[in-house]
């Protein structure tokens, strides 16, 4: 599903944010990328959704070299993915429904279908009863669940989550992780960047340990 070959990234000389990363993530994998702050987790994720370019290396997603996709066609890659951020990145002036519906509106899905799919996604994260509220009236955990509902509403092949539990307490973090596990069981490839060892111990199946931009070790449980 995702093949990364000899990936290097340098923001500023002489430091390398990523040094020769290679990894292979299969379809349906539930994968963690972990490491201390500054180890290159977010950089790796940003390269995977083509927010930034690597200095060197190749990445194939769904057998397609994503570095060769022209900028104006990058939406094709992004539609394969659902992205979840630590800071949720919700639109606070729009209701929960509209936040989740945004992805479908981009695709021009008919209104009736949007209602059906948004409701289904919100029910999955157990927020269907808060559909018409504004995100600012929700707790952090609920806001993150809205972000997850938005990421899955289009049935993406891959979910990329960057520190999705970074702002949450342990209980909520476990709740969110259970949710990701449920999504993964439906066949979606899930890649989560986190430095929370507790979560990895509990949910880790395939784990990449990053340190100073290098893969220190890889574990498959």
């Amino acid at each position, binding site marked *: 599903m995702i093949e990364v070959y000899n990936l290097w990234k340098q923001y500023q000389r002489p430091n390398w944010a990523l040094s020769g990363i290679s990894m292979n993530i299969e379809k349906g994998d539930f994968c963690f990328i972990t490491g201390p702050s500054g180890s290159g987790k977010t950089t790796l994720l940003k390269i995977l*959704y083509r*927010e930034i370019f690597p200095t060197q290396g190749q990445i194939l997603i769904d057998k397609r070299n994503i570095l060769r996709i022209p*900028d*104006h066609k990058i*939406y*094709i890659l*992004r*539609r394969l993915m659902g*992205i979840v951020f630590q800071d949720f*990145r919700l*639109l606070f002036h729009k209701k929960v429904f509209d936040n989740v519906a*945004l*992805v479908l*509106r*981009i*695709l*021009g*899905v*008919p*209104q009736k279908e949007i209602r059906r799919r948004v409701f289904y996604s919100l029910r999955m994260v157990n927020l269907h009863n808060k559909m018409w509220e504004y995100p600012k009236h929700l707790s952090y955990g609920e806001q993150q669940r809205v972000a997850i509902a*938005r990421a899955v509403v*289009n049935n993406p092949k891959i979910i990329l989550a960057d520190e999705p539990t970074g702002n949450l307490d342990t209980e909520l973090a476990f709740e969110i992780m259970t949710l990701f596990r449920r999504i993964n069981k439906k066949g979606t490839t899930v890649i989560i960047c986190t430095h929370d060892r507790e979560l990895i111990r509990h949910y880790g199946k395939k784990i990449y340990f990053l340190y100073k931009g290098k893969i220190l070790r890889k574990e498959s449980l």
Partner: protein
Amino acid sequence: MIHQKFLFSAKETLNNLWEFRGRNLFSIFIICLSFLIVGVFLSLSNNFQHIAKQIQENLAIVAFIENDASEENINAIRIRLENSPYIEEVHYITSQKAKENFSHKFPELRSIVENLEFNPFPASIEAVAKDNALSLEETIDFVNEIKNITGVDDVQFNKDWLERIQAFSRLAKIVGFFLGGILVLASFFIISNIIKLNVLARKEEIEILRLTGATNLFIRTPFLIEGMVLGLLGSSLSLLLLAIIIHIFPLYLGSSLGALSELIRFRFLSVGQCFGVLISGCVTGFIGSYSSLARFLNI
């Protein structure tokens, strides 16, 4: 699918217009002012054109007869004019009749003329041209032809006025387009900057749209529509204000301009010109918005 996307873009445009109504109103005001200036000069130019047309329609050619011209010469001139396809009617005015006409039209100068020992007014033949029968160039050719007939001393017609009025009309248009052009350019930059501010305010939303798979066109469309709507509203408002000015101007100035009031009169724009102003407004808004997005929205 396209219908759904367009509906979403239209809704986003309305949201943007309402949310940033302060700065949007400012840009509408500037666009309105720019097009109002163009409109005022265009309407002045329209009036000059109208006057020029009236003069052209009532074109009178006067052939002054030499004092020693024989009866045959006068008849030959008369016949030449009467047989011309461009001439509606011909009148022969004797020198005595010309003197009487002058005394009648300018009674205060009558004594001067009557005290003269001779009649200074030559006999003449006045010819009224048919409506729109001749263009200005054709008229000049025709006048030159009459001048060459034996017995004709000089030929006059209200060509000078026609030329002057047409020159005024051109000048009004040029001044209007020059001043308006500068202001339209200014409004173009203002729209560009206002859209830039709106893009900045929506930066986070644009970022989310990009990450969730929106195409560039999808992201840009609401801003482009917004620019066009601002341009359209500004130019429509300028037409409305122009109509009000045209209505109020004569009432306000009354007859204080005297004979000038005929010249400095606004004549409302033609339907084509109105459409031109509206389309220009739209285009200004679109280009302003597009250039801002191209420079600022790095997508």
